[in-house]
């Protein structure tokens, strides 16, 4: 049973436009959420995170929104750039600590078209 779901395997966006990547979770014990970005043949790299006490966190072109009541978060990238083309993983962890690491979604492949 997937506790972190990314229902869009891929997303194509024009350069300069906004990219919106969605993530849903089912475990109400999750209270910290992260987005990782992965290029081919490389390991995932941390992008941005948000704690459950917030509903928004912004870092440059990247903003993550959290809707706790809907158990939904989204990553907004604006404006989208060609270098943003990658697989984006949503991840979550519970307040019990990181003893079992993060729970990851299956990822969304973002393709930025020129």
């Amino acid at each position: 049973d997937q506790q972190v779901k990314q229902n869009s395997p891929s997303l194509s966006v024009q350069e300069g436009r906004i990219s919106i990547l969605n993530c849903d979770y089912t475990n109400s014990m999750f209270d910290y959420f992260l987005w990782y970005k992965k290029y081919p043949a490389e390991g995932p790299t941390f992008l941005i995170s948000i704690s459950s006490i917030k509903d928004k966190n912004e870092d440059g072109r990247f903003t993550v929104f959290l809707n706790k009541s809907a158990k939904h978060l989204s990553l907004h990238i604006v404006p989208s750039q060609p270098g943003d083309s990658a697989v984006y993983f949503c991840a979550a962890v519970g307040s019990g600590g990181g003893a079992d690491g993060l729970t990851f979604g299956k990822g969304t492949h973002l393709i930025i078209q020129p």
Partner: protein
Amino acid sequence: GAGVSQSPSNKVTEKGKDVELRCDPISGHTALYWYRQRLGQGLEFLIYFQGNSAPDKSGLPSDRFSAERTGESVSTLTIQRTQQEDSAVYLCASSFSSATNEKLFFGSGTQLSVL
């Protein structure tokens, strides 16, 4: 080194053989994780080491899988009697601590192909 290093980067083996994968974490990182990513799937937690504590093996899929870590340094993941369903990218990550908000730093992974 500056980042998490994994070797080999690629491994092709025959069904039934044993394989050993290696991970060198970032120096000073006390927490080390192994994940697996099968084709079209997300990252699947396998095992976690924190300092000298007993590892959390709750994610290991079968007793053919085992891992060791020497102190706070190198870790090896061993898969015995490999099966075709073991084919995946095996990713190692380390972090400064196991705190909830601690970022994980990943290596580039080992692509394992079991023929």
